């Protein structure tokens, strides 16, 4: 095994471990911190089916954002959809023989990487031109966008311009999954792409990217509006 392969094999395992442990630890924290009072943002659903529907609208369509800021919604929604499709397409690297459904999705050439990049660039631009968001933006907001743009750019390069050998990538990834390290494709663009993704995974649990899991624990959105009907009690807040 070459030094590079060894390095990246270890790097990948560390990154995935940090991501999983960090993400789950955060989620555990959100899940176990009590909500002493009923604070749903009303009008709110009066039963849990309604709450699921509300969440689906928020997570699936960014409903509040849609009514709040159409411009940011367009950028944000495109970006997230493109990201989702890209992640799904990448799943093919994890299967020895690509499942039919996945192959079918992958067969559509919709330049999703370009949409992803474009949406990110748009969001970057918006941060700069709207004085309110420019004021709010922190270093990490720009860094994340640049990071994602670089990932998109290198991904696009490997796919359309300096084509990386997909078979070799697949072997490498399968090796990781099956704990039987295989040689990493030495293609520099691919290596950069892969490095950035791993770095992002490591940063993920410590960053605002936790909004992905955190939204499900937002009390104003996930609580049932039934304060009068059902007495809500949490451990520290009991007392007669």
């Amino acid at each position, binding site marked *: 095994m070459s030094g590079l392969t060894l390095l990246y094999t270890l790097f990948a395992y560390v990154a995935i471990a940090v991501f999983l442990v960090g993400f789950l630890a*955060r989620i555990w*924290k*959100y899940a176990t*911190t*009590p*909500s*002493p*009072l*009923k*604070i749903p*943002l*009303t*009008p*709110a*659903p*009066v039963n849990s089916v309604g709450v699921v529907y509300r969440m689906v609208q*928020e997570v699936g369509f*960014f409903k*509040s*954002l849609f*009514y*709040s*800021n159409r411009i*940011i919604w367009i950028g*944000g929604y495109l970006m997230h959809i493109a990201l989702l499709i890209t992640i799904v397409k990448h799943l093919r690297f994890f299967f020895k023989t690509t499942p039919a459904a996945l192959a079918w999705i992958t067969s559509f050439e919709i330049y999703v990487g370009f949409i992803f990049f474009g949406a990110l660039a748009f969001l970057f631009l*918006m*941060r700069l031109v*709207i*004085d*309110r*968001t420019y*004021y*709010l*933006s*922190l*270093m*990490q*907001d720009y860094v994340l966008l640049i990071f994602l743009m670089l990932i998109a750019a290198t991904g696009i390069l490997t796919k359309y311009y300096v084509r990386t050998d997909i078979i070799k990538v697949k072997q490498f990834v399968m090796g990781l999954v099956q704990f039987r390290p295989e040689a990493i494709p030495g293609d520099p663009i691919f290596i950069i792409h892969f490095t950035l993704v791993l770095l992002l995974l490591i940063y993920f649990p*410590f*960053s*605002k990217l*936790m*909004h992905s899991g*955190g*939204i499900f*624990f*937002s*009390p*104003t*959105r996930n609580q049932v*509006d039934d*304060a*009068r009907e*059902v*007495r*809500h*009690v949490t451990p*520290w*807040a009991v*007392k007669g």
Partner: protein
Amino acid sequence: MAEEITTTEEKTVDKDIAALLTSPPKRAPEPTPELTGKIVKPKIVQGAAAHYKPHVAKPEIQEKLGFPGTLVENWQEAAVAKMRELLGKYKSLQVYMDICVRCGSCTDKCQYFLSTRDPKNMPAGRAELFRQVYRKYFTTEGKIFGKLAGAVDFDLSLLAEWYSYFHQCSQCRRCSLYCPYGIDTAEISMAAREIMDSIGLGQKYTNEIIGKVHELGNNLGMNEAALRNAIEFVEEEIEEDTGVPVKLPINEEDAEVLLVTPSADFFATPHLESLVGYAKVFHQAGINWTLSTTAAEAGNFGMFVGSYYHMQKIASRIKQAIEELRPKRLVVGECGHAWRVAYAFWNTLIGPFDMLNQKYPRPQHICEFTLDLINRGALKIDKSANDEFVVTFHDSCNVARATRMGDKPGGQFDIPRELIKAVTNKYVDMEYDTIRERTFCCGGGGGLLTDELIDVRVKGAMPRMQALHNVMETHGVNFMALICAICKAQFTKIMPKYGIPMEVAGGVHQLVGRAIVLGAKE
């Protein structure tokens, strides 16, 4: 002096402890925003609202509530420790600290930003003051990258900003409605105030009132004799007016209904008119009811300072009154934040209400109660008594975004409107973006209803004033119906500054009271 304060570009927060603890200097009133009928998104002006702050509570007030009398020696350490405690106690705070992506979609939704233009009055800008400390002491990112990542030492100038800007938030939750994750800056400002109280930096207005309600049972600090006098006076007024002896029973045992209403209803104008309305409703429906001197206050300022302890202690008076008087139903008068505490928190704080009749909501809002009577034909109504009015309705933000009336989501919008339409002939709504869950705050909620914050209050009311101005111009509206004691006090005070007569503000039950035909049933 007045000249230099119009809009300061530099931040003028206090630089030392002495300055932080002293009251704001007396200033000439700032100009009232112009009524153009439009709510525009302003360009930001940094530091434009940095000079506002409420009076700091004196040691006597603080100590009565169990808070340190004045800023403690090791305040920074103590504040961080308190923050740790609250992060562990409130999911809202913990999650909201982490998940803001600074997308900016809340930034133009707060009435205080829209009018002051200060970016620290944008909801995420306000919360950022809290997050700066959170990052510094609780996040890996902040510990490694420090200032670069927006982590800031909790120093005196940041504390001064906390004191200023967390008292320019009425906890109206408008930001939460428009945030993709529902981040509720009200939760954050409550936590900030709780932390400040715990290190001895309290707000005089709110904490004084919490002290009064603990001591005397109402926010106005009236003793029982004064209360009884006031109620007698109301009875005389009604009889003089109508010739009918309508009673306002006090401390009657075993009545059907216990009415808990904000104490302002007993003394203030136009609040009194709503009290008259409630009394007429009970009288005419023939429902045996009572007020209680133990529970002569529906308001609960414990919420404004984020104190679960004080909120529960204040609410426990209601429970005590129920035990003393054994009513079958519990009805709450017109008050926004009070209805939030009653509707959403009472069951947790002082429930379960097993001793009350389960056939009715526990508690029930006076609008639910009255509309139900009207729908069942229990009241005779003469709408023409209100013909001099073209009415609109201001959705109190606490009622709109934190509670419900009736069984269906949105009942909190429909029930008061149906009630108004049942007692008046002419009703129009204000602009779409300013009503129902999208409503703007009156500008005086959340513990801001104090004289030294008058400039903040006048500005905070700007979006509502624009919308009201529009319907006054286009539809001849001359009455804005309210269901909140604070809204009533705020609007009657600030509307004249906008050139709108204060009589335009009044209670929903003021209209009900005028339209009820007394003695007509028999």
